[in-house]
């Protein structure tokens, strides 16, 4: 089974965000970068599918700066067979531009499955996976939380508001991974050693035209400190009154 898994280098979710001098990007000094957590589920699923199929190849693809090689090495250490970096100084804010570059790379790869995380935790686009599917003319299932593959077909579960949706699709297909699809493995030390020797190709991306740019970034307003009214049932009426009149949530 030949599987591509597209991963993104993003700031660690624990980063204290600072905005750069241009007012429209993140100040990256001192920021730690990681593989977007949803992408870890995608990598894990790809590895499990390859191993279950008794062979094949898992190719990790990233679009990003040179430092995204680290992100690819992390996927290789987990067990992916090779990596491809589409090297761009900056990851464009235009999801379609990114999707076009990825689709161009994946088009002639002969993949049975193309996996993404359901979204990147830095820009929350939820877009690149479905766009790539569209560009490749493949069926797409987003936010997959359970997956069965049998012959040339797949059955996926998606958690939707108040229930579970079961969808069937034909392979090849593009899927995006939801939390809980599996438990991503830690890269074993032997995997980290082996990753050094695996092929990692660096090439320029065929980026689409960039038609969306980030114009400005702003931090959310600081949350006001809470107020403690007291303890016990006696303060409940006052609490209800304030929730009605002041917070206006009731």
């Amino acid at each position, binding site marked *: 089974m030949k599987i591509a898994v597209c991963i993104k280098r993003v700031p660690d979710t624990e980063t204290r965000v600072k905005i750069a001098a241009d007012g429209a990007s993140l100040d990256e000094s001192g920021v730690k970068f990681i593989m977007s957590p949803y992408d870890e589920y995608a990598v894990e699923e790809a590895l499990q599918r390859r191993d279950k199929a008794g062979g094949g190849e898992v190719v990790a693809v990233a679009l990003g700066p040179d430092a995204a090689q*680290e992100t690819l090495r992390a996927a290789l250490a987990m067990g992916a067979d090779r990596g491809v970096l589409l090297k761009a100084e900056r990851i464009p804010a235009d999801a379609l531009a990114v999707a076009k570059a990825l689709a161009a790379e994946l088009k002639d790869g002969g993949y049975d499955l193309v996996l993404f995380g359901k979204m990147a935790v830095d820009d929350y686009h939820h877009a690149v996976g479905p766009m790539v599917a569209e560009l490749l003319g493949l069926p797409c299932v987003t936010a997959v939380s359970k997956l069965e593959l049998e012959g040339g077909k797949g059955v996926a579960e998606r958690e939707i508001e108040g229930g579970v949706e079961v969808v069937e699709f034909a392979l090849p297909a593009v899927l995006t991974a939801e939390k809980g699809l599996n438990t991503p493995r*830690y*890269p*074993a*030390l*032997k995997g*980290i*050693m082996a990753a050094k020797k695996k092929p990692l190709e660096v090439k320029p991306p065929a980026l689409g035209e960039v038609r969306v740019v980030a114009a400005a970034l702003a931090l959310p307003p600081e949350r006001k400190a809470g107020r403690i009214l007291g303890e016990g049932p006696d303060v409940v009426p006052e609490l209800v009154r304030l929730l009605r009149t002041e917070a206006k949530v009731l």
Partner: protein
Amino acid sequence: MDDSLFFTDQHLQVREMVRDFARTEIAPIARQHDAEARFPWTTVKRMADLGMLGVPWPEELGGAGMDYLSYILTVHELARVDASHSITCSAHTTLGTSPIMDFGTEEQKRRFVPYLAAGKVLGGFGLTEPGAGSDAGGTATMAVDKGDHYVLNGSKIFITHAGVGEIFIVTARTTPGHGNKGITAFIVCKPTVDAEAAAAVGTGHAPDLPWTRGVSAGKKEDKMGWRASDTRELHFEDAVVPREQVLGEVGKGFVQFLKTLDSGRIGVAALCLGLAEGAYDEARKYASQRKQFGRYIAGFQGVSFALADMATEIEAGRLLTYHAAWLKQHGKPHKLEAAQAKLYCSELAMRTTIKAVQVHGGYGYTTDYPVERMMRDAKVGEIGEGTSEIQRLVIAREILGDVVEG
């Protein structure tokens, strides 16, 4: 310390993995295992699978094939979260396995190391005796030469993994008297005392090891700290050890254990450094969240200066530890630097954990926060693998020579 001073990208990947594992898998269970003084078989099995029980040993022998710095990073990162898991890795690797790698014959390496390096069983090191602690040359366990085998009689005390482990390097006297040349090291095997737990997780017992009749684990110590680590007596009652299980050569036991301890001290330094750093992390976090007199306590000079001192001393400890590790990795002499790192970091861990409890106030004195456990875990750093006094003795001898009395 700039990461590029000692580390490659691969070291940072190792650090990241161990850090992530420790925070996600060990942090939630550390308190419970400490309270129940229970060996953490489940996480130890996972550590074995990830290669953490054989970091610096070659892949042909079942190890991860990495370097010494990767190993020290592993010990350090584990200890930031839990010292018991860290000493399990450290005692197993430096005390239980490195003597075979450093002094064993090719046959001994081939026969015993694969079990240890892959973490199929745990290893340990039996040197200390009730009457021979700091003065380990005072070994009284006797080994009588019977031609094709030796017969051992005596007792060891405070042996890490004596209960849970299966392969041990032990010292015994092959020539009566007090002479250091009369001490020989042996490889002995005894089944784990936790057979059921080992079977349940699938690591910890290897039925095909050559069991040494007459070797058994004794009383388990009820300890102040390192409570999830297993510390027991190890007894020899007419234990029959085949001649081919003499580690290296007869009469070399004393020199061997001194060398093992020289390197072992870097591991203990890394463990203590991790403890100090873990306690500092907690204290910094708490001080930035706790308000008194209308402001975060980190804003009070009395607290912020304490945190500033902790951060500075941890930085010093890191440089001492990784420099000593770097010297060892590059095959350079490191006796002095290892003792300095161990002395400094063990005292650093004690100071820092005490201060971290103080920063937490009354909450720090309860088991709701990990700093009280860290404080209990820190003390043994000043005792195990040579007390602080013995480190000062080693350092003094290194810098002053023979004028220093033993």
